[in-house]
């Protein structure tokens, strides 16, 4: 990269004043070069992408017929796995009419007869919100086609977010869509492929449904095989299983549509997954509760998305009626009884064994994969473009929504805790249940820890430990019970370590004592190994830090080794690799503390190298988080020793943190870490102070100002931004939240406060 290009990258994201300031310092030819690059910079590359795509579209356009019957084909306006859609115009100067012509791919020629049969039924559908079917037939060279009303409109999700519709407006629009589907169901026509690209909204705000009944018309009579048209995100489990078309499929798809209209996302992010895992999710994984919307509405979505069609709304009408009840503030049907059922599902779902998956889906083969995936990709890109455009406007809303989400998550965790503690009272009777419970509980605990901080999580884990100790007492020597106890102790140790590492040591030891002997037993699964490894790592670190260096290092070695069987089994598993790297970094930490900087540097370098080797994308969050952390610590170690290398590492670290913070599903932790990393960076030119403030504030808002770590980060960001007075206020709030028993943490916060006050005095 040339000097001019480096400078370009430095400047491209800066404010005009800053740019001008720096540019003024440069010599003329260099300045001109940088300026001319900056002139052509742009926040997106749609223009360049467009050149290639347009060339491709036109290259292909040469392959379609110029005319079909009385219709002249114009530009292609859409493409799908089954067909391409062209603009059509009647070839008659007296009478111009614009239509959409859907030209099916030749491989569907076998379905022509059925398609034409079905066409007669479809042509009878006449509803203001259903695109009218005019005509259909077969081209001279045997390609089936349909002539449809040409609808000019925006896909429904783009419409909703582009126009920033209010919640009630969104729901009213959804009801109109549902009405059209009801109408068709009364004519015994099922859509079977409802999704945003099939629901357009005109400039007048009228929804128009496209492609009614076409998916079903294309189905093989036995309802299965390569011609299945579906988009996995919107397909119900029974549809994926290849069952005959039924209205319940449309109920489910409408549920997904509603989910998207409320959140901008589908319930599962299937695109990134390999097909088998995507199918597994559709078939077995409960959709998470919709966050940031009123609870009854979340219940309505959930009821529409039930895996078992019998538990879903019985008809689209029932779904719409419930949405209307919600709009009238009446209790919704979705509230129902069923609480126990759902709790049970929550506990069970992580243990569902998926056996027959492969056997069932051999039928849904290549064509489906190719077409739905390719289609999903283009749709995803389009949706992303829309989202990107509205993102800036929604940034503000989002901060508020996130606070609501955090609240909702905490509520949920609390309710689960209560319900589950009732269950566990019976746990000693049934170890299988206990096992499920523990897994659900550890998950819940982690959520609590992230959202509510260590206090709350500690209170809950103590309750659980009490229960589990009771179980162990009743069943001495029961390996399964011991395993759960050890795992819970490991959690307690981790939560406590966030407050006071010394106090955590006893829990770590106890956890290792209970889990260690099970390492080679039948109970040793990946769950046990990762838990044991984490406890050993924490223990080793604590021992080494408190002076027992060699003993600590031995424990850390064991911690790394404990992971080996799991890693050997799942070599590409990012979260396991991240765990191993964490252990190496701990090693670096303790060596550094002992003044053995050379050894510490080697440990960091090894961790970093492993992480770079594994190099998952930003989607691989644990790995990426570790990479960001490792680069930062290594950079710190080299500060003053090898400034160039140190600076590079800090840059790598900040970049990774930034990507994590900006990723679509980033969380409070990511924002906090990114802001923290900026605060700690010793190189002023790498410190993006505005980002530190922004993300620290986001993290504080998301935790409603109740997480002391987030407040501490914000205080430092404020201090670094020259707002010492604000920093003092923020830090005081943070300190007030920390109990005296968490002495280490408190001391740390107070040290910060002193520094801020000193800065205030100046």
């Amino acid at each position, binding site marked *: *990269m040339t000097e001019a*290009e480096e400078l*370009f*990258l430095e400047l*491209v994201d800066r404010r005009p004043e800053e740019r001008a300031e720096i540019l003024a310092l440069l010599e003329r030819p260099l300045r001109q070069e940088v300026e*001319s*690059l*900056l002139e*052509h*910079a*742009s926040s997106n*590359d749609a*223009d*360049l*992408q467009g*050149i*290639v*795509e*347009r*060339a*491709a*579209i*036109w*290259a*292909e*356009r*040469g*392959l*379609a017929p*110029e005319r079909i019957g009385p219709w*002249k084909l*114009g*530009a292609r306006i859409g*493409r799908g796995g089954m*067909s*391409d859609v062209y*603009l059509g*115009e009647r070839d008659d100067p007296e009478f111009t009419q614009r239509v959409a012509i859907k*030209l099916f*791919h*030749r*491989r569907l020629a076998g379905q022509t007869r059925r398609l034409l049969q079905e066409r007669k039924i479809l042509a009878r559908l006449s509803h203001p919100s259903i695109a009218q079917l005019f005509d259909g037939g077969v081209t001279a*060279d045997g*390609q089936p086609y349909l002539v449809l009303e040409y609808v000019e409109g925006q896909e429904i999700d783009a419409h909703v977010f582009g126009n920033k519709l209010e919640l009630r407006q969104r729901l009213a629009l959804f009801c109109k869509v549902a009405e059209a589907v009801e109408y068709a169901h009364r004519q015994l026509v099922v859509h079977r492929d409802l999704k945003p690209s099939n629901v357009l909204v005109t400039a007048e705000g009228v929804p128009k449904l496209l492609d009614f009944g076409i998916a079903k018309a294309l189905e093989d009579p036995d309802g299965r095989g390569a011609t299945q048209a579906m988009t996995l995100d919107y397909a119900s489990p029974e549809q994926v299983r290849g069952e005959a078309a039924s209205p319940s499929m449309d109920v489910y798809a409408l549920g997904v549509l509603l989910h998207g209209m409320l959140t901008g996302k589908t319930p599962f992010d299937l695109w990134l997954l390999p097909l088998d895992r995507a199918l597994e999710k559709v078939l077995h994984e409960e959709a998470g509760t919709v966050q940031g919307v009123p609870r009854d509405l979340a219940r309505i979505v959930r009821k529409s998305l039930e895996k078992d069609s019998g538990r879903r709304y019985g008809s689209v009408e029932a779904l719409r009626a419930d949405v209307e009840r919600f709009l009238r503030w009446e209790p919704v049907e979705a509230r129902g009884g069923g609480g126990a059922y759902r709790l049970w599902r929550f506990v069970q779902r992580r243990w569902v064994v998926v056996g027959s998956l492969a056997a069932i889906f051999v039928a849904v*083969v*290549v064509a489906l*994969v*190719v077409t739905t*995936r*390719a289609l999903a*990709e*283009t749709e995803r890109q389009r949706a992303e473009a829309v989202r990107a455009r509205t993102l800036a406007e929604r940034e503000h809303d989002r901060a508020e929504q996130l606070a609501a989400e955090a609240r909702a998550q905490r509520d949920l965790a609390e309710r689960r805790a209560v319900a589950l503690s009732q269950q566990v009272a019976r746990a000693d009777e049934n170890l299988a249940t206990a096992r499920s419970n523990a897994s659900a509980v550890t998950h819940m605990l982690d959520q609590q820890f992230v959202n509510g901080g260590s206090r709350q999580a500690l209170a809950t884990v103590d309750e659980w430990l009490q229960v589990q100790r009771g179980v162990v007492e009743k069943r001495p020597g029961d390996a399964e019970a011991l395993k759960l106890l050890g795992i819970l102790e490991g959690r307690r140790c981790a939560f406590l370590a966030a407050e006071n590492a010394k106090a955590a040591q006893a829990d770590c030891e106890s956890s290792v004592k209970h889990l260690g002997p099970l390492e080679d037993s039948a109970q040793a699964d990946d769950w046990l190994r990762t838990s044991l490894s984490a406890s050993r790592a924490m223990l080793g670190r604590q021992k080494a830090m408190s002076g027992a260096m060699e003993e600590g290092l031995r424990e850390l070695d064991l911690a790394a080794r404990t992971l080996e069987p799991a890693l050997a089994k799942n070599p590409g598993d990012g979260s396991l690799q991240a765990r191993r790297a964490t252990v190496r970094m701990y090693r670096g930490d303790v060596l550094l503390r002992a003044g053995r900087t050379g050894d510490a540097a080697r440990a960091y370098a090894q961790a970093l190298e492993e992480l*770079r080797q594994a*190099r*998952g*994308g*930003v989607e691989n969050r644990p790995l990426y988080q570790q990479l960001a952390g490792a680069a930062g610590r290594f950079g710190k170690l080299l500060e003053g020793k090898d400034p160039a290398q140190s600076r590079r590492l800090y840059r*790598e670290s900040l970049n*990774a943190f930034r*990507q994590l913070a900006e990723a679509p599903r980033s969380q409070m932790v990511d924002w906090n870490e990114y802001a923290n990393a900026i605060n700690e960076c010793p190189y002023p030119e790498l410190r993006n102070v505005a980002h530190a403030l922004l993300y620290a504030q986001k993290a504080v808002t998301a935790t409603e100002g109740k997480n002391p770590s987030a407040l501490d980060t914000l205080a430092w960001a404020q201090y670094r931004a020259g707002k010492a007075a604000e920093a003092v206020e923020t830090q005081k709030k943070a300190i007030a939240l920390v109990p005296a028993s968490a002495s280490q943490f408190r001391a740390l916060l107070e040290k910060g406060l002193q520094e801020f006050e000193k800065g205030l005095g100046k």
Partner: protein
Amino acid sequence: MGTPVTALLARVRTGDRDAMEELMPLVYEQLHRIAQGAMRTERPGHTMQATALVSEAWLRLAGQGHGDYQNRAHFFGVAARLMRQILVDHARAANSAKRDVRQKVQLREQFEVGAPPETDAAILSLHVALDRMGEANGERARMVEMRYFSGMNLEEIATVTGVSVATVHRELRVAQAWLRREMA
């Protein structure tokens, strides 16, 4: 038919240049057959949208169940160059064929049979600019190719080029401004 391609890809990954030589014609042939409509009897009207086409060629050549991430990324890397060649060839041919016809037939824009001349001109000018970039910085030109002609994401490009995602991002950022300036 999956095996030879995946085996070749495995060799490409170890830096085996012969394997690359053997692979190119296979991929080119596959892309070209779809693009030229030689598959017409099977799938007329099928798209040539660059990214979809590359995905499809991958599935046909590698077969099901060989979707190893690394293989896939390398394949897309190879296909990007070929895709570019195909589109440029097409634009050149269309450009010369259309010159006479367009004078006679005046149709409304949307109903024109061929591409508007600016579409062909744009892809050709992108092609020339990319060639020029390649002279100064071959690696960067490759990344651009992979991005636009194969629709690869940053991680995939990083996998193929062996640099970090951040580097790919930076290179592309510069490349975009550079190309726009060159084509302006």
